[in-house]
């Protein structure tokens, strides 16, 4: 099946040794923090706030950014994607396979990191529910972020920079300040989804609408990427 062929070679391309080690180390940071908190059992640290600050705000978008832009955008830049584009394959199949791989690899790193950290920090009474809530949020967030960053890589040759700007400046600073802007923040979707599964683990503005927004963002990103890939023109040349 074409989808699996594209997915398989994309996984091999994304799991270069240096990139994998770096991202695994990044995903290990929250676990280390969790271990420290766990060792000092007296300290009062809220599990939701910790995971939100470390994973949802920083590590999830960064890992998704690396995988999402490398999956397709950088291949379009360095010419590797030409081998894929000059085949009789629907462009949406290419985008779906690339997005699925980028999202799955992001989730493979971020979801365990989230779950272990939550288990270490959460109070015994709510450990199960909080862990599941945050892990599901991270899982959904992995695919939504990956889809957005794959699309960014098709739309612009500076996907990495634009994506970094979105994750750090928009999501990190502005989306919290401007009322109504949360609708365009993947971080808010993740918080909303977690707050629905385990009420009280995180405060959320969007609440259960987070599921809907996440679905819309995912579909829109894939559609934009497929549309633009069908009209992709090689950059540079003579």
């Amino acid at each position: 099946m074409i989808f699996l062929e594209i997915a398989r070679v994309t996984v091999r391309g994304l799991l270069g040794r240096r990139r994998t080690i770096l991202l695994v180390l990044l995903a290990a940071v929250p676990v280390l923090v969790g271990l420290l908190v766990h060792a000092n059992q007296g300290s009062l640290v809220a599990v939701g706030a910790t995971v939100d600050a470390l994973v949802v705000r920083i590590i999830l978008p960064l890992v998704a950014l690396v995988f999402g832009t490398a999956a397709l955008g950088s291949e379009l830049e360095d010419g590797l994607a030409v081998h894929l584009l000059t085949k009789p394959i629907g462009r949406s199949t290419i985008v779906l396979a690339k997005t699925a791989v980028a999202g799955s690899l992001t989730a493979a790193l971020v979801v365990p990191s989230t779950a272990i950290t939550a288990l270490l920090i959460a109070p015994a009474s709510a450990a199960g529910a909080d862990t599941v809530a945050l892990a599901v949020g991270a899982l959904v967030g992995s695919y939504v972020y990956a889809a957005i960053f794959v699309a960014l890589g098709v739309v612009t040759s500076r996907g990495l920079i634009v994506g970094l700007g979105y994750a750090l400046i928009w999501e990190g600073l502005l989306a919290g300040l401007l009322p109504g802007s949360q609708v365009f923040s993947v971080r808010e979707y993740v918080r909303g989804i977690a707050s629905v599964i385990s009420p009280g683990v995180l405060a959320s503005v969007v609440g259960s609408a987070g599921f809907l927004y996440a679905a819309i963002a995912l579909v829109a990103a894939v559609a934009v990427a497929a549309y633009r890939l069908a009209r992709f023109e090689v950059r540079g040349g003579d």
Partner: protein
Amino acid sequence: MTANPLAPTPTAPNAAAPGQPVPANAAIVLERVSRWYGNVVAINDVSFAVGPGVTGLLGPNGAGKSTLLHMLAGLLRPSAGRVLVGGQPVWRNPGIYRTLGLVPEREAVHDYLTGTAFVELAARLHRLADPRAAAARAIDTVDLAQAAGRPVGTYSKGMRQRVKIAAALVHDPSTLLLDEPFNGMDPRQRLHMMQLLRSMAAAGRTILFSSHILEEVERLADQVLVVHAGRLAAAGNYRQIRRLMTDRPHTFRVRSSDNRRLAAAFLGEPSVFGAELHDGQLMVRVAEYSGFTRIVAKVARASDVSLFEVAPTDDSLESVFAYLVSRR
């Protein structure tokens, strides 16, 4: 080859207007194609048709060869005009790749795959019935079987070129486009690649390759398209083009024992337009290269002048291209 598969004649290479009949066997047709980037015109109103056989796309660097090939490969949208391969428009038509293969100039390949895996991947993406056999056949064709088990990342430039060609012909396309295929190849690899392309053309395929080196085109191509500054400068078989290139006005620099007397003698020759004296040198403008080289010694002897040096002043390929464009 008896029929000339290039639609426009060498004297009017751009004349093929839309709707004008093209040869029935033309695999590639460009109809008044232009391409611009912002205000920069990269390709300017180019029309041609290419049929089976090897056709060389010749032009200096920056002439627009890659832009033309990218439009033919469906990787660039023509700003105006139509690009057809096998009678179908190429732009936004991925189905075209069932009969079309492209060997890109850029070297990017999946370094972590072995040669076999790389070509097999192409076969699978083409949904071939037996990808393994097709890959083995293609690798055999480019004579890479010995290195096929090694990762492509360890390949030399010439081997990368060959593995890219194997991947591009794994589905046995009727039309094959190659962007500067001989770049980075040593003479032995070059020779082998030429034999390969010739044998593929002999099997009825349409092969179009770009090059900025006259000698490569001369040795390989039955038909030549000359591109300069975004325009089609000439089209025809190689000998016709070659004659156009040599039979053009030239300026020769002559040093002799008596430039003044020699100048007067040259001016009596019908093939000489003019003669000027500059810093002890004689500049002679002539109608055509070969005609002047035949008479120069005779004229000097008749006027009893000793020739020290006769040199064409302007024989770069660039000036040849510029001349071909200007005469149209």
